[in-house]
């Protein structure tokens, strides 16, 4: 690599880095990630201060006390016994003194409840009341039959099933859940970034071509160097953005319980993330090359979307397969697809995250991927050389052939 490659590389990186669109998209995404990681706090902040008061018209015998006991420690709902008329209760609700009121009755030892509120959209409240009543009902029935507290507990104790993998390096249940979450996040990031930066490359190439600056560029630097400089410059840009967003997300989650709840651990598994970055870069190179070649044969920027369609579909297909594979990582279909270069970056990464993949399979998959990328670079840079000199009225895939011929003697 010589000097001119670095000029293009740095120019691409710096110009894009300084651009408003990069700044805005990074900030917005970082904010969204921050928002999601703080979701529980945000919801808490927005929910009504204080408890919701719910009036209870008790037409039973002693159920109210039992129910009240269930809500003793509840921060959101407090119950009030109401002995007045139902009309009065309605007024309380309508004047917002109460959030709602219920009429509680028992028929044949089965509770019968009617819930009155201004609207019944908030299912959280009704759900909690239902659950509490269920508890009360069990307690009441048990008392009737004469069961002890221990007996009830024994009756409802969950079945303890421990899953033990016999393979030596197989992942434990806990590890699998962790892996699934991380793989999911990284797959999604891969999908977003490959599409976003792939089409950025295509737009760049098409813009340079349609603004006709390409001819000046390739009269001073070989098109292949120029292409490499551009693709790698944008790769660095995408890594920059990824690391920025990832850091924001990690930093903000680290302090909340979300990370522990979601991933079930305090520290991220570094090897998996490194694999993620490796597969992302390889996938990016593969698709960037495809997008760049397509960009080189369109004559006008408006045609970019149309030409990009089939390649975009490949990325989408890979993502859909990966989503399926998350739940069935061992299926033969997923195994097979993890060797297809266009899907390997996502699918093989998924298998590595979820399963214990033999090293030779990983090596083979990466080998095939690298081979395909190398082939695409050789083939693509030839088409690119010709494509950038070609101006047709309407672009189509047939132009690939024409561009190829243009570089021949």
């Amino acid at each position, binding site marked *: 690599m010589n000097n*001119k490659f670095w*000029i*293009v590389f740095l*120019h691409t990186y710096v*110009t894009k880095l300084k651009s408003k669109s990069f700044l805005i998209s990074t900030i917005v995404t970082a904010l969204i990630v921050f928002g999601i990681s703080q979701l529980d706090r945000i919801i808490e902040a927005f929910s009504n201060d204080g408890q919701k008061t719910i009036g209870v018209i008790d037409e039973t015998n002693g159920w109210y006390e039992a129910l009240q006991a269930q809500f003793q420690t509840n921060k959101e709902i407090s119950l009030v016994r109401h002995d007045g008329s139902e009309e009065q209760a309605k007024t309380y609700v309508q004047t917002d003194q109460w959030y709602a009121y219920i009429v509680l009755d028992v028929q044949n030892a089965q509770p019968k409840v009617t819930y009155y509120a201004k609207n019944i959209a908030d299912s959280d409240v009704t759900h909690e009341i239902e659950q509490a009543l269920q508890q009360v009902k069990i307690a009441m029935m048990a008392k009737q039959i004469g069961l002890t507290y221990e007996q009830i507990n024994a009756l409802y104790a969950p079945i303890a099933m421990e899953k033990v993998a016999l393979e030596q390096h197989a992942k434990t249940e806990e590890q699998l859940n962790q892996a699934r979450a991380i793989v999911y996040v990284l797959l999604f990031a891969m999908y977003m970034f490959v599409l976003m930066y792939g089409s950025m490359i295509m737009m760049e190439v098409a813009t*340079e071509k*349609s*603004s*006709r*600056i*390409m*001819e*000046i*560029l*390739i*009269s*001073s*630097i*070989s098109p292949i160097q120029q292409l490499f400089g551009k693709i790698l410059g944008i790769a660095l840009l995408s890594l920059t953005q990824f690391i920025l967003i990832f850091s924001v997300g990690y930093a903000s989650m680290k302090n909340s319980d979300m990370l522990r709840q979601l991933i079930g651990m305090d520290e991220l598994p570094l090897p998996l993330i490194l694999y993620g970055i490796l597969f992302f870069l390889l996938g990016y190179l593969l698709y960037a090359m495809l997008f760049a070649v397509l960009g080189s044969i369109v004559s006008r920027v408006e045609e970019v979307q149309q030409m990009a369609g089939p390649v975009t579909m490949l990325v989408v297909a890979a993502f859909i397969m990966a989503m399926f594979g998350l739940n069935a990582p061992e299926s033969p279909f997923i195994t097979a697809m993890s060797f297809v270069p266009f899907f390997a970056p996502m699918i093989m990464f998924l298998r590595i995250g979820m399963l214990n993949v033999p090293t030779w399979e990983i090596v083979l998959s990466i080998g095939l991927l690298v081979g395909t990328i190398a082939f695409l670079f050789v083939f693509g840079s030839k088409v690119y050389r010709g494509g950038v*000199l070609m*101006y047709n009225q309407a672009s189509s895939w047939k132009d690939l052939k024409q561009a190829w*011929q*243009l*570089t*021949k*003697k």
Partner: protein
Amino acid sequence: MGLVLQHVTKQFGSFVAVDDVTLSIPKQRMFGFLGANGAGKTTTFRMILGLLEPTKGEITWDGERITYKHSHLIGYLPEERGLYPKLKVKEQLIYLGRLRGLHKEEIVKEMRDWLERFKIPQYEDKKVEQLSKGNQQKIQFIAAVLHRPQLLILDEPFSGLDPVNVEMLKEAVIDLQKKGTTIVFSSHRMEHVEQLCEHICIMHKGKPIVHGSIKELKRSFGKKNVIIHGELPFETLTHIPGVIKMEKTVEGVRLQIADESVSQHILEHIYSKGFIRTFSLEEPSLNDIFIEKVGAAYEQ
């Protein structure tokens, strides 16, 4: 040595874009390519620059085949104008200049000199899209000459410029030539070529149908022009032997004649027939040569 093209041919599939061109352009010369659209001028330039590879033949500069190693020696102004619309003039020129092997400081200095010369120093920090088309073209010209190339290739440099800017650019081109730059340019405006070049090549359908020095071409062309202004019965002039063509102008006529001696017959013929304001014998214009040669090539 300069620029040498030897039997250069370029085929696209079965279509022959450039057909067996052999030319030698010595250093410090201003060389003009003439030709209708699609005559193969741009393809020839692209081959000289190494953007396309000749199907047959060889192109050398100073005895060496031109590759990207030589890109700091060569300047190019493409026919299709374009710059990065979103970049500032300065950023743009720094990028393009560095790709030609210059350092930032040299570029800025050189750029300011040129902007000054073109009377647009205030545009240094403007985005290209904010500039008028003529000014964009000046910026692009600066991009082509910033690195003081030995060989400068200008594809239709004056198209789309107003007369004032054309003059400005012409002067710049002549200055560059005086400083030692070899300049190859194409145009379909005969008067520009006639003013600037001593040597030309007329291309038609990929073939160089005429090439050599303009003086030589005009002399060997044989035919001359006679310009007559005045009030005369011009119609009878076409009957004089040796008169090939007559064209009416605002003030009189312009005749094409087979050789110099015919002019004397004409003079005798019109003498005392009316008021003659101007009678002059002129060299054929490049336009005449072009039309005749290309026209002949069409008829083949």
